[in-house]
């Protein structure tokens, strides 16, 4: 059973095409194991990316070094998964 403890989802807003290209490069850095929930497509659209906890520092540093603004959309993915499970179990009992 795969755990997502400490994984975060970052919402990133690229300002222009240059920053968008930097985000697209992130797709190719396979060692960072990022999972794009919303892909880098246009500066008008936000990008959401799940980042494993072990690579958070590296990804955030990468974004900062390129001046790309982001916010933490989900602080801990596993907490939400646990809540989903509890909700499903409660529903089943009901």
């Amino acid at each position, binding site marked *: 059973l795969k755990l997502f403890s400490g994984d975060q989802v970052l919402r990133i807003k690229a300002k222009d095409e240059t920053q968008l290209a930097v985000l697209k490069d992130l797709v190719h850095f396979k060692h960072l194991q990022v999972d794009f*929930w919303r892909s880098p497509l246009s500066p008008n*659209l936000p990008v959401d990316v799940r980042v494993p906890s072990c690579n958070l520092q590296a990804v955030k540093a990468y974004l900062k070094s390129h001046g790309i603004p982001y916010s933490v959309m989900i602080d801990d993915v596993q907490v939400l998964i646990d809540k989903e499970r509890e909700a499903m179990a409660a529903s089943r009992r009901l």
Partner: protein
Amino acid sequence: ERSSSTFSFSSYHTIEEIYDWIDNFASENSNLVSKIQIGQSYEQRPLLVLKFSTGGSNRSAVWIDTGIHSREWITHATGLWTANQIVSEYGKDPVLTSILDTLDIFLEIVTNPDGFAYTHSEDRMWRKTRSINPGSSCSGVDANRNWDSNFGGTGSSDDACSDDYHGPSPHSEVEVKSIVDFVLGHGNIKAWISIHSFSQLLMFPYGYKLELTPDHQELNDLAREAVKVLTTKYGTEYTYGSISSTIYQASGTSIDWAYDNGIKYSFTFELRDTGEHGFMLPASEIIPTAEETWPALLTIIDHARHHPY
């Protein structure tokens, strides 16, 4: 004995619960609903389609699928609610009643059952099918890059480890092939709606190229109308347009295949995103999401009904 009337639509469910519900739902509403098995998944799960029909033979029909990307749980949940809504509203809602008096509706709620089961048992974030890729340690194919519509082109990956992996050949995934065979065998599908989540978009062909379809203006106008009625419900804002102009070029998608095979009214939804949870949309948002999607679905289907071709 279990009844589908005790089922909670405001909760997420396992595949076993959904399959049980489908059985009960079809048997309790046999005047309007029948269950069709169109194939078996890679891991031998039944691929089930609900047929809503008031009679006739080989009527013009609408195809709706939810959950081809297994981690998008809100789509399966919306599919369940929608199925129930069709039965509940037939005879009450004049638009739906008129639709079902002339058209059939086919609804596949769990389009990727192996992936869906895997999201419950192993990896909540799983998106692909679960087929084994010879020569790779990575499993699965993106079932929405596996269609024979510019297969292997821009916006799909040849890396079996990628979430966008297009697979070894067009329709290599039995989950895709089963739909292709069913739809081509039927021969009278006039509208196609593939439901995904969660970016609040309503899109139409093409995805694999930037060119506009010959029907672009009509599809664009219809998308605008559908988005308008969707937004009216709770103020949820959607963007609409062709896949390639709205978000990205993507090859091998279902709606491009449908369009290129003569189904003019081909659309794909990306359902609600609160900007807070992504695929982990709280269960409390299931019913609002389904409710706002419903009038948009009816708008598209009713347009197809009034514009035979």
